[in-house]
């Protein structure tokens, strides 16, 4: 763990720049495909129902300025770290935090539609949009 942290910071910066890290901060989906491991998501996104209405960042960063860039910074760090060490889980899995962000972005765009069904519950409201709509962004495998 400690080794990962120490090495990560050093090489991470290098990797970030090498892999066209700067374009990561834009909204252009192609920014994500600078890494080939994102290619299949990009390809699937091109065929998805959201292709013309939402970019990667529309779903993967919170819909407010500070949330967006802090998320990107954090994710950017994990990304270059993972890329550098090359030992991430395959297939790639979304983290809990990023899943929650994605869920919040669905609600942010579709508030009107879902206002009647999206409510709390005493035992916990585990209403998840992607339980049913897992294919909206990019249908992999299916």
């Amino acid at each position: 763990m400690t080794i990962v942290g120490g090495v990560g910071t050093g090489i991470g910066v290098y990797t970030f720049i090498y892999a066209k890290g700067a374009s990561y901060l834009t909204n252009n989906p192609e920014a994500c495909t600078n890494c080939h491991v994102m290619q299949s998501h990009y390809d699937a996104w091109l065929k998805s129902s959201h292709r013309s209405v939402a970019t990667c960042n529309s779903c993967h960063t919170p819909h407010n300025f500070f949330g967006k860039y802090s998320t990107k910074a954090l994710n950017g760090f994990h990304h270059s770290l993972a890329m550098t060490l090359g030992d991430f889980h395959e297939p790639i899995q979304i983290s809990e935090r990023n899943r929650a962000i994605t869920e919040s972005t669905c609600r942010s765009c579709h508030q009107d539609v879902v206002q009647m069904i999206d409510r709390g519950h005493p035992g916990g409201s585990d209403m998840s949009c992607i339980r049913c709509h897992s294919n909206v962004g990019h249908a992999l495998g299916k």
Partner: protein
Amino acid sequence: VNIFEHKQAAKNPFYRVTEITDETVDPEVWGKNFPLQFDDYKKTVDQVRTRFGGSEAVPHTPTNVDPRSVVAQSRLEEDPRLKTMWSGYAFSKDFREERGHAFMLMDQTYTERQVVSKQAGTCIHCHASVYVPYKKAGGGDLIKGFEHFNQMSYAEARPSFTHPVACIDCHDPKSMQLRVTRPGFLEGMKALMAGRGIKDYDVNKMATRQEMRSFVCGQCHVEYYFKGKEKRLVYPWVKGLNIDNIMAYYDEIKFKDWIHGETGAEVLKAQHPEFEMWNMGIHARSGVACADCHMPYKRVGALKISDHWVRSPLLNINAACQTCHKWPEAELKSRVEEIQQKTFEMRNIAMDALMELIAGIKSAKEAGATDDQLKLARDYQRRAQFYLDFVEAENSTGFHAPQEAARILAKSIDFTRKGQLALKIVKN
């Protein structure tokens, strides 16, 4: 846990034109606030057949005892072997395909089973909006009211109830959150959870929202029996939800529903174990709830709502299945029907086998075999019949848990086989 949850709790998205309280039974009143849901709710009067489900509208000449002008098709006429299986029990006189929720009170009141044998007040638990009448009769205590009606005859209890299952049976009128109002389910789940080491389980406090989307249906779509003289409604789940657990429980308490008319075996009737079977299937395991398929979301104008026209998903494949499965409708339908066809094939094999066992015991009895000599064969009949009936009575024809339904039928056939062998020994 989820970062978006705080915001949600505060939301109260419902615009109300009239006040509804914990005493408002009439769905029409609720419908003033929620016209979209109410409109769909009323559609459960529709009758359309699918290959194995839905229901067929069969004309009926109204009589004094049974004023219905339309009923569902008789299952006894479709398959007379059922009469033999249920010989000596009210089910052998009248058993029909079930239809929409709108009919539940009427169909219970006028089934011929009421005529041939005196039914208990307990019956009402699953065929009417009972929440308010139970609470009233119990002086505010739901359970007391439940016990009160259980001990009446059906005829005595019946006048206190007016509506089939209504909004108040599934919803909290203030928040519109789902809630369970059925004592049978509340107590059944408590027993089940206790068996799993969870004490004092309270469905309404501890279940998640997604669980509730099945639990409100599990209030009624379950196997049950009437316990003791008080005719308390009990869901037999202390040992667990699967059929082996349930059988073990009935054996332990030596329960029987009736004595078989042709063989003298102490037999059991299985009833609509949709909740139990669903629980054994891959959809439950994947977190897919009854409401996901039987009340899928639909869009009305700009709004998404739950379709309150509870019915066969095969009549609504697009909304019920296609959000999760991107196969064409015809393909999805044929996947279901192939599963059902195989279940039906095995059910028929098990049924034919059972008929032979019953005939065998009957003729051994007539030939003078003693109770002692017939004991084993009868015990196998009890098992063979309960296992078969568990799949027969379950209304998805195997779809809710295909492999489990097949496993149950395989065991049924094996019990029959052993019963027939036990008879052979008698004869030799």
